[in-house]
């Protein structure tokens, strides 16, 4: 193998899920001793590409070449055997086992009999770890270590199989700045040994600190690829954002009274944050995965872990104790994980849309079936839920229509929510229905009586729907953008720099 031969080559990889194309003719290569950064916002195809390399997905077309071995598709086992090691954000460690046990998981060292050779495992694990100069011993349990050190364990574990390519999926998302820098040093150490590294990230700064080459994906295509040294930052930002989309939906010219005031709200993983929501406006929180956006919404709604600060709405001041109280004061939350946190998947459209309304629709303790029918029919028609049949189980609807059912829960005529908190509302929803949902959110605030707070990691979405955007980095608001300043570029550079 010559020095100039790439360790990993991906050639015109294609992958579709149903009608939507996640990867179209993606090609890239990584040389030995190179750190190759992969960028692109959520849904750009990064996860699908990693999935194809790790064997989670079978590509429809194209090939993957590791050293000299070509394959059209890989199973997870073949991927590992061929020399691809992937470290996901979840790290894949067993928290209750020791560092040594984790490093040798599945390839345990034995004594001559059937027993585990704990001592030898521990010694070899410590040897393997030594290049990273760890501050811990291999005999401690993984759960006692901070995330950054758990990551060291995961990398050491992966290196045990002497891979050709190491893929890291957003490794710094859960790390502090210092920890992130330490990780960079470790990766440079591995690079010097001839390892090829694919580094998936959202942060431009890291790219310029540690990477040699950069590739940007957008809508499943490679839109930029080049040496980091000869690529100015502005070009990378442009590539991530893409050309300007169509004119954004009509925005409010003015807004009304303050409906919610969030003051110095803070919890273990975010804050303190302070902002107001006014009647008639849609406010966007732009933040990447792990930036604390879900935590902030849940804290406002009384679900989460706010430790200090306050949320004031009209008569109420202070942190809500539980969602029921927040709802009583006019708040409503549509969580990001529709299936896990929002819907009752096997239950009917009607039961899902009216989940928070059965009490309000009852008389003398009994349900009003006619009232329920009419309320459901009105809101289903108004939001355009398809199929609108009240008895159909909600899990058989498309993602976009499921989201409409979630909205119906808070917008039907029995509800008086004035503040809608929407966490990643268009996750897994196709472009056409997205536009419909944006228009719907504009309609919600049009009467100047309600406000909408929406989080998103898609700058295009924020620009399309919000009057004003708060940029969230590591749990803090670093920037507020509105009017002509609110552009995809300004969002990305505020969040990534």
């Amino acid at each position: 193998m010559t020095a100039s031969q790439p360790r990993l080559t991906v050639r015109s990889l294609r992958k579709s899920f149903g009608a939507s194309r996640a990867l179209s003719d993606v090609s890239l290569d990584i040389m030995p001793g190179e750190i190759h950064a992969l960028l692109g916002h959520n849904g750009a195809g990064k996860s699908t590409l990693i999935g194809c390399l790790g064997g989670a997905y079978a590509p429809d077309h194209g090939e993957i070449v590791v050293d000299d071995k070509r394959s059209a598709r890989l199973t997870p086992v073949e991927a590992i055997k061929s020399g691809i090691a992937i470290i996901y954000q979840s790290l894949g460690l067993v928290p209750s086992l020791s560092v040594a046990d984790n490093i040798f998981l599945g390839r345990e060292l034995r004594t001559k009999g059937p027993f585990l050779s704990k001592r030898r495992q521990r010694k070899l694990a410590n040897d393997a770890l030594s290049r990273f100069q760890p501050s811990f011993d291999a005999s401690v349990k993984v759960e006692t270590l901070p995330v950054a050190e758990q990551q060291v364990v995961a990398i050491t574990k992966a290196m045990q199989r002497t891979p050709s390519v190491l893929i890291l999926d957003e490794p710094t998302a859960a790390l502090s700045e210092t920890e992130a820098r330490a990780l960079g040093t470790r990766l440079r150490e591995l690079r010097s040994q001839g390892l090829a590294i694919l580094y998936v990230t959202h942060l431009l700064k890291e790219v310029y600190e540690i990477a040699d080459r950069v590739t940007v994906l957008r809508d499943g295509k490679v839109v930029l690829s080049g040496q980091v040294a000869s690529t100015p930052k502005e070009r990378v930002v442009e590539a991530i954002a893409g050309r300007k989309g169509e004119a954004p939906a009509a925005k409010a010219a003015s807004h009304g009274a303050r409906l919610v005031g969030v003051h110095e709200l803070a919890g273990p993983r975010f804050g303190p944050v302070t902002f107001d929501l006014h009647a008639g406006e849609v406010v966007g929180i732009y933040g990447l995965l792990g930036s604390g956006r879900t935590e902030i919404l849940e804290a406002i709604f009384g679900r989460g872990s706010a430790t200090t600060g306050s949320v004031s709405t009209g008569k109420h001041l202070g942190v809500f104790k539980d969602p029921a109280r927040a709802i009583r004061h006019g708040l409503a939350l549509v969580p990001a994980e529709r299936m896990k946190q929002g819907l009752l998947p096997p239950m009917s459209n009607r039961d899902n849309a009216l989940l928070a309304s059965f009490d309000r629709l009852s008389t003398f303790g009994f349900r009003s079936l006619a009232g329920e029918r009419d309320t459901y029919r009105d809101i289903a028609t108004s939001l355009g839920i398809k199929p609108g049949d009240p008895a159909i189980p909600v899990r058989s609807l498309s993602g976009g229509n499921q989201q409409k059912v979630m909205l119906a829960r808070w917008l039907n005529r029995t509800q008086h929510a004035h503040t809608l908190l929407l966490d990643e509302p268009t996750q897994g929803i196709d472009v056409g229905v997205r536009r419909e949902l944006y228009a719907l959110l504009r309609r919600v605030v049009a009467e100047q009586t309600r406000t909408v707070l929406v989080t998103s990691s898609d700058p295009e979405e924020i620009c399309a729907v919000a009057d004003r955007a708060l940029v969230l980095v590591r749990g803090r608001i670093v920037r507020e953008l509105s009017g002509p300043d609110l552009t995809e570029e300004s969002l990305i550079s505020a969040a990534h720099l």
Partner: protein
Amino acid sequence: MNDAAETTPPRRMQGADRRGAALSIHGVSRFAAQNVLLVGLIGLSIFFGFKSPQFWTLTNIRSIGLTSAVLAIVAVAEALLILSGYVDLSIGSVLGLGGVVAGLLTVNHHAAPVIAVGVALLVGAGIGAVNGWLCTYLGLSPLLVTLGALTAVRGATLLVTSLPVFGFGTAFDSLGVGTIAGIPVPVVIAAAIFAIGALYLGLTPGGRHVYAIGVNPEAAYLSGIQIKRLPFTLFVLCGAAAALGGVLFAARLDSAPPGTLGVGFELSVLTAVLLGGVAFEGGRGNMIGVLLGVLFLGVLQNGLTLLNVTDFWQQVANGVALVVAAGLSVLSTRASGALGGGRKNRTEVGSTPSLADNTFGSGAMDPASSVTTVGGATTNG
């Protein structure tokens, strides 16, 4: 119930041949497949009718009603609890304690039946409250907590008295052996409780909330539903229902043996509820199904006794029925796509779309939907 019709799920048949098929042999077999339990109950009754001339006599039917009555009373409460995603296994012992407490108050303290029964119900409700508090507010495992209570309450009953209590007098005994308009009192009480349970589940907001908590407690919580208080209340009701069952048993036997009253009863109740199509993981099932499950067990026990099948074989039959119920429950869960979950892993709520039918809606009063899932399972494979 006016929206039962809209709840009747679209079957796999296409619209055009639906009407025709309903009249054909195919239609009959489909009906059978979707109503396994009803068909089983009818089949069982015909079989026992052939084998034993006494089976269809009025005395025997009353006897079936009497055995089923106590089972039904406790099964209604247990079914609600299981639907909300919890379970109470201590009911056998609570039943025993309820009977003993009421009996002792009557015999030793000459308490009026109203007082005796009232105190017994309070004791049962109290045990239910402890169970409920541990399982809902403290989040302990319902299986383990109530299994512990099963043992502890039996021990406590024997501490109160180790000898059978008997000789309650006619006023008290009339609860077990009396009749109202020719119908045995326990059957009247059971019918009333069943009707209340079915109305609650089908026609009140609380009934919807029970399903919601059973299917996805997180979603229910974020919608402002009291996901702890409601199951807690159901635990209390379950305890009270078990105690009431004990009172009725004791009154019928005119005796409350502390060591044996209600032993193994929790398994019968669980069998009836699961046979009735209630998913052990919660969130799926209805009251008509539970009633059919209760009657099925009642007929089975009665018939086997008539045929002089020994007690040991009856035990074997009951155990097999529970395992079969567990099997049906898994099959119907798979068919409806509700994977994982239940009280073992409350955050995992199934999200796989499938062809299976909706068993919710207002199906509580709709016999057709009670066993729909079972049929779905057999035909879906």
